[in-house]
């Protein structure tokens, strides 16, 4: 189900987002860019990253910008590589630690809901890159799900990079027109009687959803609980895993 969704989303965002080579501005007359030292195609020959397949418009653009930064001596290739490495070193495990602590310690949960920045600070997590971090608790009466209809705002320091579906046009439009349909696309139906609250993360705030604590986890340690907290449950498009579901995933 969710694979299908990703395929669909990818298919249509590809259609809107990534014109192919024949539509690329790189086919322009190079004389219109005569202030540059090299033509665009010359920049492209000198790539700073290994390339094995046809590039879409944005990949071409990124490589072009990287080459200009390198040639002008603004950044070295290694500095750019390290920056990319840093970006991908953030993972949802950080957010999962926060949720597992909140499940284990009601007083911590209270502080997290009150002031998420200082609560994360207690766990040594620096959230100062976010203007305002807000934790929202999914309960038996309220279910929160998060979308950014303008682009892809996401609490990256806690969850890493957003998944492709989060950035796709279909998710972004369906979440604010037919949210229950959007959840069903993920195979998810919120509990009966729950009020659904869609959060459009369009400005200065970033949101961490605390999923409902699964039944039968009363005896689990905080560390074991961390493994049940998935990325998607912290965006609110799924529940956390039950211990049985986790075992199944772990065996697979």
């Amino acid at each position, binding site marked *: 189900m969710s694979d299908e969704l990703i395929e669909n989303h990818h298919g249509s965002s590809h259609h809107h987002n990534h014109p192919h080579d024949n539509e690329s501005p790189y086919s322009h007359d190079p004389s219109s860019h005569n202030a540059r030292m090299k033509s665009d195609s010359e920049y492209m020959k000198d790539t700073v990253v290994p390339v094995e397949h046809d590039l879409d418009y944005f990949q071409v653009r990124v490589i072009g910008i990287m080459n200009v930064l390198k040639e002008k001596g603004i950044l070295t290739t290694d500095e750019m590589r390290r920056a990319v490495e840093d970006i991908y070193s953030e993972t949802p495990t950080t957010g999962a630690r926060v949720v597992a602590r909140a499940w284990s310690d009601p007083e911590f949960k209270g502080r997290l809901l009150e002031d998420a920045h200082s609560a994360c600070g207690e766990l040594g997590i620096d959230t100062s890159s976010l203007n305002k971090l807000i934790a929202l608790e999914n309960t038996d009466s309220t279910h929160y799900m998060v979308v950014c*209809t*303008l682009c892809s705002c996401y609490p990256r320091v806690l969850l890493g990079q957003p998944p492709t579906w989060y950035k796709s046009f279909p998710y972004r439009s369906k979440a604010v*027109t037919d*949210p229950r*349909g959007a959840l069903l696309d993920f195979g998810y139906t919120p509990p009966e009687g729950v*009020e659904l609250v*869609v959060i459009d993360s*369009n400005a200065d705030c970033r949101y961490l959803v605390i999923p409902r604590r699964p039944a039968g986890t009363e005896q689990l340690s905080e560390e074991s609980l961390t493994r049940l907290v998935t990325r998607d449950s912290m965006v609110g498009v799924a529940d956390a895993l039950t211990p049985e579901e986790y075992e199944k995933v772990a065996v697979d």
Partner: protein
Amino acid sequence: MPKFQVGEDVRIKDMYFEGHHRTTDYVKGKSGKIIRYFGSYENPEILAYGGDGKPFQDLYWVQFTFNDLWDEDVAKEEDKLKIQEMRKQKALNSKELKDKLNIEIYEHWLEPL
């Protein structure tokens, strides 16, 4: 001092100007309720063009029901057909119309109802 209070009903201005709009089209002209005040932030519509973001803008959480958002009677002409189609396909079901949407809105986009 923030101009609006928590609990106050507001309307999102239906304004158009050239440049970056941090308020999304689908809430323009719609009425909702202020449920939280977040503080004062640099204006992203000025930051977007390399400006200093001043003056700071008060930022609020405004809540709508899906009925407020997708009510045919208050919809813009160009949205009416789409909403009729959504209702026909039961994409907007009755349960869903009671669901809520919270969005962050800067003060210059708000007017009292």
